[in-house]
């Protein structure tokens, strides 16, 4: 079983590798929690690439994630390496326009344009 240091390294690598990263319950194709599904739909709407990592059954990794973020629940969202909580936080940021600005900025840095969404 991996120790918490190696889990921290694994999480850091995953956060670095994905501009938008959701740790959730279930996958994009098969979410296993209403809030994870809601988060997937939330980011689908923005049209930028994002990754979902299923940690439902990985209790040690969930514990390390909670310690790293000081946040007890899933899903947990990282954008450009920073922790942003969940859609309870991102929803108000979307309404104020702050989130579009942030995503525009971080993806422009990487040369990624949003795909057109309905």
């Amino acid at each position: 079983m991996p120790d918490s240091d190696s889990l921290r390294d694994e999480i850091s690598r995953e956060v670095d590798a994905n501009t938008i990263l959701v740790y959730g319950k279930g996958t994009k194709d098969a979410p296993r929690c209403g809030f994870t599904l809601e988060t997937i739909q939330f980011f689908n709407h923005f049209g930028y690439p994002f990754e979902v990592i299923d940690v439902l059954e990985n209790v040690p990794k969930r514990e390390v994630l909670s310690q790293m973020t000081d946040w007890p629940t899933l899903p947990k969202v990282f954008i450009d390496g920073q922790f942003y909580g969940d859609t309870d936080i991102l929803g108000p940021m979307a309404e104020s326009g702050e989130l579009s600005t942030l995503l525009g900025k971080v993806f422009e840095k990487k040369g990624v344009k949003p795909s057109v969404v309905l």
Partner: protein
Amino acid sequence: MGNTNCIPAMIDRDGVVALIRAQMPDADVVVTDLTGTMDHYDIRVRSSAFTGKSLLDQHRMVYAALEDARQDGRIHALQLKTEVPSA
């Protein structure tokens, strides 16, 4: 809502309010039972204790107040909205 035979694995809306007010006595708390099963709640909290805190920290404060009820499963899922009272 007249339900007096709650099993211990539940918490009613007043119970949620009491846990939050124990940490933030001035809080205005509105709790909605999303599923009718008394364990999925929408919780809205307005408190001066949030003044100067980031939204993330405001939510952390409410999660801390509800820590025991989440750990023992009385609250299975919650969605949360926090705000600072307008002056």
